[in-house]
């Protein structure tokens, strides 16, 4: 898995951490995702799930259905780091 590859969140392997690159859903969904702190540059770790995903974002467990997870494009982070409780400084 190359560090430069970008793919939808549903394809992120369980246990892996990714960085949100961009959101591809409709405006309403994108804004809600951003308002929940799940916007671009947020770090996300997948806990479980295949069609419905369970992810850890900023210390919060968030469940996404398949169409929602398809709309969030991430890039994997090669280092197996834990998601910080604090947002990454941009």
């Amino acid at each position, binding site marked *: 898995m190359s560090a430069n590859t970008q793919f939808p969140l549903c394809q992120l392997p369980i246990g892996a951490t990714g960085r949100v690159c961009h959101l591809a859903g409709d*405006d*309403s969904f994108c*804004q809600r995702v951003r308002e929940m702190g799940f916007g671009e540059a947020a770090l996300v770790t997948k806990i479980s799930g295949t069609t*419905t995903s369970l992810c850890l974002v*900023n210390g919060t467990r968030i469940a*996404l259905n398949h*169409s929602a997870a398809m709309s969030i494009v991430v890039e994997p982070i090669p280092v197996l780091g834990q998601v910080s409780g*604090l*947002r990454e400084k941009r």
Partner: protein
Amino acid sequence: MKLPSHITSTARRRAESASDRTPIYAMVGNPNSGKTTLFNALTGLRQKVGNYPGVTVEKKIGTTWSQHGKPIQVIDLPGAYSLAARSPDEAVLRDVLFGRREDTPQPDRIICVVDAANLERNLYLVHQILDLGRPVIVALNMMDMAAAAGLKVDAAALERALGVPVIPCEAVHGKGLVGLRLAMSRVELPLARHRWDVPAAVAPAVAELQASLTDNEGRAPLVARAEALLLLTDFDTVRVAGSRPLSARTHEILGNWRQRWESAGTDWAATLIRSRYDSIGGLCQDVVVRTREQGPSRSDRIDAVLCHSFWGWVVFGAIMTALLFSIFSLAEGPMDWIESQTTALKGLVNGAMAAGDLRALLTEGIIGGVGPIIKFLPQILILFFFVGLLENTGYMARAAFIMDRPMSKVGLNGRSFIPLLGSYACAIPGIMATRTIENAKDRLVTILVAPLMSCSARLPVYLLMIATLLPGDAVSAGKKAGLMLLMYALGTFGAFGFAWLFKRTLFKSAPPHMIMELPPYQPPRLREILRQMLGRAWLFLKNAGTIILAISIVLWALTTYPKHPDPAATPTEQIAHSFAGQAGHLLEPVIKPLGFDWRIGIGLITSFAAREVFVSSMGVIFGVAGADENPTPLRDALRAARWPDGAPLFTPLVCLVLMIYYVFAMQCMSTVAVVKRETNSWRWPLFQIFYMTGTAWLFCFVVYQMGRSLGY
């Protein structure tokens, strides 16, 4: 752009504080941040709390007392992630804060309840509220959870940064309430000091919209600014402005800016949210210290099993089986005891009074009607114990997670399953819980199918039919539980089937996105569960002692009068001659193809008030028909009932068909009223009655006729 230094005029604030009017506080925060727990702790009320988002869907008002003994009104509001409302429950928060609800006064002050373990995300809503320029107190709740997650939150530093009182507390353990009450008792609250910079490119748009909202909509300057920021974050004006439409001028300005940004290819809406988060991120860096590196938490480890694509289903099935098995195995002793007491009471009255109408009213109408219902109290308690466990531990949200896949097959998502799961207890809170669903079509579909989930009112009907169908101790609890599971499954599949049908015909829409927060697991709070169980038991008994008692009395009168001209007429002949008998005979042609006679027809009519009334109606009708001096259990009376040709009435097939009828038929007046209120129209409750009862009739007809042709 900076916030203005003067937020509201000091003179006005002084005038407000000097008045004798009871101050009103609104309690706001993200879903599942513990608002209602804090509200209950402050007001002494006992509003429902649960460990899943969306427990509160309507505002609740209570009173607390200041340290000087003065009353303070507190409004508990549904949780929201943002002031740009996306679902009806979030709209309640927005409308109350903006003073748009006619039935609720605009709050003077706001308590922002913040989950300390998720400070950054929770501060997003706080940040929007600070923009409103209203006096705010931040209640930093769940400090214990934050510490457990390895986070040290410096409340004093946050208070310095925001400029508003920040009170650390643990509402569950009653900690920090004194500090919060002291802050609420302050005559004047400092106003927010926190500043954040709106990106320079967006500032002109904010200024132009603010001016228009002030001039054309008559908004106060700070409210106008806050609303302008929301409108630029979310271009759907209805979500920001509510049902009151914006002026043409504001729409025009908004349209122009949107067009300009679209042509420039810049997503300024996203930039606005990001700049807010940047500001919050800076705050958190100064306030939150991570004391240890966070590994997978206990909740993560549990979730790895409970949300697993295979093991999750195994656990879900095991929980449902355990629930149904306990209903049959644990409740038997108490039920027998209640039944023996009812029989003894009947015997006592029969022995103490001479034969006559009053004695018949007492034994057949009142004891015969209410007794069979009270018998099911132990099973209702067991059901609500399990429901309480699921709600308390945080499993409700996990159930929604694992049910997302089957829900997506019918065009809904897992979020719709929480109202459906709640409908196993009662369809009314289930229907109200649909307010958390963002998509209006999905919400309506969920409302339409929610009453198909087998609620606790169906339990007495199922249990009576199962007892008649599978009598005695020879039949194992497992078999009875299996039959009950079949009824629950039938209702659930029925709900899914109709959701699928509605989503493909009446309410076509794209598959909805679901994004839902799963709260950390918590050990069940037995006291809370016990309190909820007792609350439900009290409501059940209250219902039995009021509506069911009244219907039983009236039904007894309808089965007793007019008297048969022949004094030697049998009890069955007497009922057939009575008003109820005549009405039942009118209905019989419609229900005879289902295997039901006119006496069952009377039960079907009366149980429209509430499903469990069917049991009391059977108690009255077949109690009347039974021997006066030797009362028998209702199930035995039903087994002895005959058609005029001597054939048994309650054959196993009829019992099964009757259960199926109650799975599908819309037999609840209260549900009809709530659907009318929630959909604001009579169209949908009437449609619901038609499709549900029509399906019930059709299904029962097919099953009965097939059963008959197969020789059952």
